[in-house]
């Protein structure tokens, strides 16, 4: 039987955990004290490397390795925490920010100490006023207590933490778009290299990490990299927050050690199966940008590398489930509408392609799709893959092609028989 291992959510049920007093009573800011007084910055990074922590924003990049890309330079360095949380299905970072915000602030300070930064910005999507409020209150309390600002905990370390609100644009979760947006512009992604760790905010080295990644850092420094590495499984150490939504009995945000259960066990045993009792038709295992899994593909262990072997991805930890009452034409169109609305428009294949895909899928939904449309869907999506500045284009291509491939019969059955041109 699967059960939760709560580390980030250990105290989430206590409404007082938001306050500095309770956070400290529960062991908060001990990690910071230990790091500032007993560890060199490099030792903090070493501990994170040892923990095996991989980024929780979707790509799973090793966290400590990213920090090591920051060059030795006299330029200021920055930490930008990605709290844009806009991948459909994902609502986990919000739990950290609203229920236990100090662990994020503590992680931010530890990360800044490790990389030599004196300023952290937490970029929170504008549609999260509650998260913004909770963080601002927590930062204010920490500042008043000498934990944020100058001479932190009586040491020479100084560091500011600021909340920065976005204004409703999914693309700003892409790390380079986040930077251009934070600088006061439309959120256009930039070509890499240069990578942000070398040239980020205002041309200075900038580390970008997801909220959950930074929250993990707090627990790693508090209890040790070896302890963290002993949780979960190889390649997916520690615990992770998963958001289960859609047609399940028990949707919710849960914290698990990876690699200890299969997706089927999670959905059928832990989440009580489908709401209607009808069979599962498909599962998006890592947000809407990842390929769908069929009911017969749910027996994989649920960790980054095992899910990758199915051809899909654990992505942002958002599991979206639909039962067999759902038309795949509706689901595919909904996903395409999202990405075409959110395309920033800089790259022609993404701007035009996403719009084209959306229009053709609408035709299919209306019963007007043709063989020609089917072929165009494949060629347009093929042409979007790998030809753009950022990965938003792929975020539409991957799920869409997976629907076409795995539910081909349903598309074909909805097709009009006579040949017709499109668009």
């Amino acid at each position: 039987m699967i059960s939760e291992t709560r580390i980030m959510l250990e105290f989430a049920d206590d409404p007082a955990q938001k306050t500095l007093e309770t956070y400290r009573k529960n062991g908060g800011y001990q990690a910071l004290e230990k790091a500032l007084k007993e560890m060199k910055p490099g030792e903090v990074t070493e501990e994170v490397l040892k923990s095996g922590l991989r980024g929780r924003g979707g790509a799973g990049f090793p966290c400590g390795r990213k920090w090591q890309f920051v060059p030795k330079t006299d330029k200021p360095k920055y930490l930008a925490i990605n709290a844009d949380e806009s991948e459909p299905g994902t609502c986990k970072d919000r739990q950290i920010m609203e229920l236990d915000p100090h662990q994020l602030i503590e992680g931010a300070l530890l990360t800044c100490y490790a990389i030599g930064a004196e300023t952290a910005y937490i970029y929170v999507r504008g549609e999260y006023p509650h998260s913004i409020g909770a963080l601002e209150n927590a930062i204010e309390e920490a500042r008043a207590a000498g934990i944020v600002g100058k001479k932190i905990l009586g040491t020479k370390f100084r560091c500011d933490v600021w909340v920065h609100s976005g204004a409703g644009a999914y693309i700003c979760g892409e790390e380079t778009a986040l930077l251009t947006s934070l600088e006061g512009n439309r959120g256009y992604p930039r070509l890499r290299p240069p990578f942000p760790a070398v040239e980020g905010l205002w041309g200075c080295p900038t580390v970008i990490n997801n909220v959950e990644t930074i929250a993990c850092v707090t627990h790693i420094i508090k209890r040790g990299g070896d302890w963290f590495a002993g949780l979960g499984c190889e390649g997916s150490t520690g615990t992770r927050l998963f958001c289960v939504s859609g047609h399940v009995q028990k949707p919710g945000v849960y914290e698990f050690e990876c690699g200890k259960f299969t997706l089927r066990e999670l959905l059928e045993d832990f989440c009580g199966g489908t709401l209607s009792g009808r069979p599962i038709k498909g599962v998006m295992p890592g947000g809407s940008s990842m390929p769908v899994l069929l009911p017969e593909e749910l027996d994989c262990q649920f960790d980054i590398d095992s899910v990758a072997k199915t051809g899909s991805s654990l992505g942002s930890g958002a599991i979206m489930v639909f039962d067999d009452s759902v038309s795949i034409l509706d689901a595919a169109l909904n996903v395409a509408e999202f990405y075409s609305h959110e395309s920033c428009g800089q790259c022609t294949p993404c701007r035009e392609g996403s719009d084209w895909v959306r229009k053709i899928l609408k035709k299919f939904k209306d019963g007007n799709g043709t063989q020609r449309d089917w072929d165009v869907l494949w060629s347009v999506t093929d042409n979007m893959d790998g030809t753009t500045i950022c990965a938003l284009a792929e975020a539409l291509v991957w799920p869409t092609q997976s629907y076409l491939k795995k539910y081909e019969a349903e598309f074909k059955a909805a097709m009009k028989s006579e040949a017709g041109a499109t668009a």
Partner: protein
Amino acid sequence: MSAKAAREGKFSKELHATIEDLMTRYPQKKAALIPAMHLIQKEREGWFSRETIRDTAELFAVSDAHVQGVVGFYDMFHADPVGRHVVRLCKTLSCMLRGADALKDHICEKYDVEPGGTTDDGTFTFKRFECLGHCTTAPMMLVDEEKYEELTPSKIDAVLGGLS
């Protein structure tokens, strides 16, 4: 703030002070633009008129076109007048699976408003929004800054019916 002050291109003293303070958080004050624009929009009846765009641009020493571009890029900024409240109903997959489209129809019929439109009496502007990050308690909507989850038609009526 009074209409006269708005015409003269001045923000309220309090807002001015808050924005000045925001600017100190960044090495370049332009970075405070988007956080400041939320506050500006609130003070200027919920949207960016040509005048408000000009005043904002002046305060930040950027071009009007830059501010206009930012207004157009971000879904939370409005280029046209809005009602006294803004209702944002999520339309994305998890909410769709939990019946968000029927809720949209309910709102449209009962309050005689189309997505993107405003009720005749100006009470609220109705928007369909992409994923609002409350997918495990879908379907959901934001009314101004308040959130409402696990929506049903009667829950929606209790909220929207109480707006003034």
